[in-house]
């Protein structure tokens, strides 16, 4: 058991899976020689050679498009997109092919492939380096969308993603790449996709979040606990398909629901969760399902970033209202 942060866990997991399964290939811009701008793939090219871990030219559509071809021809590609903000040039390949090949061919061609990308903001980066794609990917039938909030989960979810027979988008919250360390088992383990995790049992309000914000929500939970408000905190882990059961059960218990997310509010992932709660627990609701979400603005670059991102205090403020409704 080693103590690792999120980014080194990604590296360790890719390493193990490259070792275990010859079909796995890892590639993207700066992924090979340099080992990735975040160092997610550092050392892997040296270990597995240029055929299995390699740099690509600067072309996101081709990165995803060639991964489609590789998956069809027997490989298990793990493609890296530099930042979620550079997913857009690949969106046509993702929506039109990655998500659809199995359905289009009525099951004949499936695509076991993973697209990894640093996701979300809060890292004081320039424009397009802080995008939240939850809705833009979650809305697409045929995609699974996963995001870990801890190193431990990252390993289990990434292994599940690579071994899945279908494409998985793996969103890595870059804000917490190096935020903290955790014990991560050496041995192989998977965490099932599509299952949320109850991080904290509670009685007053169900709060769902994922990725980096999970940690702010946990802090908000502590603040509120001091006031006697007990949160049930759920890490969604898989953005699509959503683990409705876990959430609905919890809301049926607490009668109150809050979703906290980084993406812009309108047409955001929070709306979907609120809808699910309406559908599954309407008669249990003691307060309106509520979203605490990003403003409907382009995420500001660093000198304004703090206006956009919410801290535990602000999250607690929002939850408190729901608790006291």
């Amino acid at each position: 058991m080693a103590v690792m942060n999120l980014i080194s866990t990604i590296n360790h997991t890719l390493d193990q899976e490259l070792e275990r399964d010859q079909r796995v290939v890892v590639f993207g811009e700066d992924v090979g020689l340099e080992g990735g701008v975040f160092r997610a793939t550092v050392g892997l090219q040296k270990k597995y050679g240029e055929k299995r871990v390699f740099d690509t030219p600067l072309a996101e559509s081709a990165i995803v498009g060639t991964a489609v071809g590789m998956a069809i021809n027997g490989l298990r590609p793990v493609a890296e997109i530099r930042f979620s903000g550079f997913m857009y040039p690949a969106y046509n390949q993702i929506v039109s092919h990655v998500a659809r090949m199995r359905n289009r061919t009525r099951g004949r061609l499936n695509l076991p492939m993973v697209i990894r990308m640093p996701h979300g903001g809060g890292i004081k980066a320039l424009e397009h380096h802080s995008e939240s794609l939850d809705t833009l990917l979650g809305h697409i039938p045929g995609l699974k969308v996963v995001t870990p909030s801890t190193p431990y989960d990252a390993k289990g979810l990434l292994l599940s993603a690579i071994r899945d027979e279908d494409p998985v988008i793996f969103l890595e919250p870059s804000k917490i790449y190096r935020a903290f360390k955790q014990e991560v088992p050496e041995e192989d383990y998977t965490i099932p996709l599509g299952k949320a995790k109850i991080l904290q049992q509670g009685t007053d309000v169900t709060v769902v979040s994922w990725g980096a914000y999970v940690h702010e929500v946990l802090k908000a939970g502590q603040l509120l606990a001091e006031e006697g408000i007990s949160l049930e905190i759920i890490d969604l882990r898989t953005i699509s398909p959503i683990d409705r059961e876990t959430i609905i059960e919890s809301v049926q218990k607490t009668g109150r629901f809050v979703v906290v997310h980084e993406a812009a509010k309108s047409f955001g992932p929070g709306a979907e969760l609120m809808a699910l709660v309406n559908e599954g627990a309407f008669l249990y609701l003691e307060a309106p399902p509520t979203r605490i979400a990003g403003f409907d603005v382009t995420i500001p670059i660093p000198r304004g970033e703090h206006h956009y991102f919410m801290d535990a205090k602000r999250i607690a403020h929002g939850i408190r209202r729901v608790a006291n409704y």
Partner: protein
Amino acid sequence: MLAQQYGPLQGKMLQIMDENGVILQTDLVPDRQDEAWLESYMTMLKTRSADNKALQLQRQGRMLTYAPNTGQEAAQVGSAAAMAEGDWLVPAFRELGAWLTRGVDLERVYLYWYGNELGSKFADGVRVLPISVPIGSQFQHAVGIAMASNIKGEDDVTVAYIGDGGTSIGDFSEALNFAGVFNAPVVFIIQNNQYAISVSRQKQTKAETLVQKAVAAGIPGILVDGNDLMAMYAATKEAIDRARDGGGPTLIEAYTYRLGAHTTSDDPTKYREDEEVEKWRAKDPVKRMKAYLIAKGIWSEEEDVRLIEQYDEEALEIFRKVEATGETELEDIFKYHFAEMPEHLQEQYDEYVQYLKEVE
């Protein structure tokens, strides 16, 4: 090497046979048995029959829509015939000749244009990708397949098709560039049929030829008379052999013409002159191969007429089967999104089934 003689900047087009089926360059005739040529010719005939039948059926309101390829048979059959067993074919959407050459059932093709997804489910072992509607996007899949062959140390080659219009979209250039960088064993075939719906080749790009787009990626290219079966075969065979031997990708421009409409909903008289069409009709690839085979004494008018009749009947029979399939099963629109149907999809399906029961 043909790709040098007829390369992007040579200002020449590879032609082995003239418009009347007379061999122009004996030394370039590919080393291939008469029967093989005859077989390819038959595939061209079959393609045209299937094409005509589809149009006819569509006019009767029985086929949904259809993208005819009359005029492009040599470009398709000639190139696909040069492929070996394990090779992959990645079509755009108008590649009937190539599909039939590579063992795709006409039934599947008709199913597709009949509006049924099962038309994209080819038999196991048929290494052919389904139609790719978003123009150009398939080129990247082709490169990925070819890269995978390299990575796995297998020597299969991938042959991919695109139209003249397709050369303008970013995916095309990205694909060529990737193929060059990774030395991918892939042969890119542009079927320059002079139009992208109503937009003429001249309005598509200022490049004098489309094959010169190979220069951007630093890969070889060759301009070929796309209505000359032998030339298409020769150029593709050379490119495939080179790819298989580790020589990387090649771009082929097949200079041809779409004699028919873009699809059955298109009216080409809106954007081109009959005169132009007639000029090209004289270059008909089927006609010229037929003349060649008859002159060689291995084919006759009578056999031709009979075979066309046979193909016409077969095509109709196949379509009748397709027509009998009727509508898509409800379950099928849900079942194939994932290896296992996720709960929410199952629920949507169940609810709808329930609704259908209720309203019955």
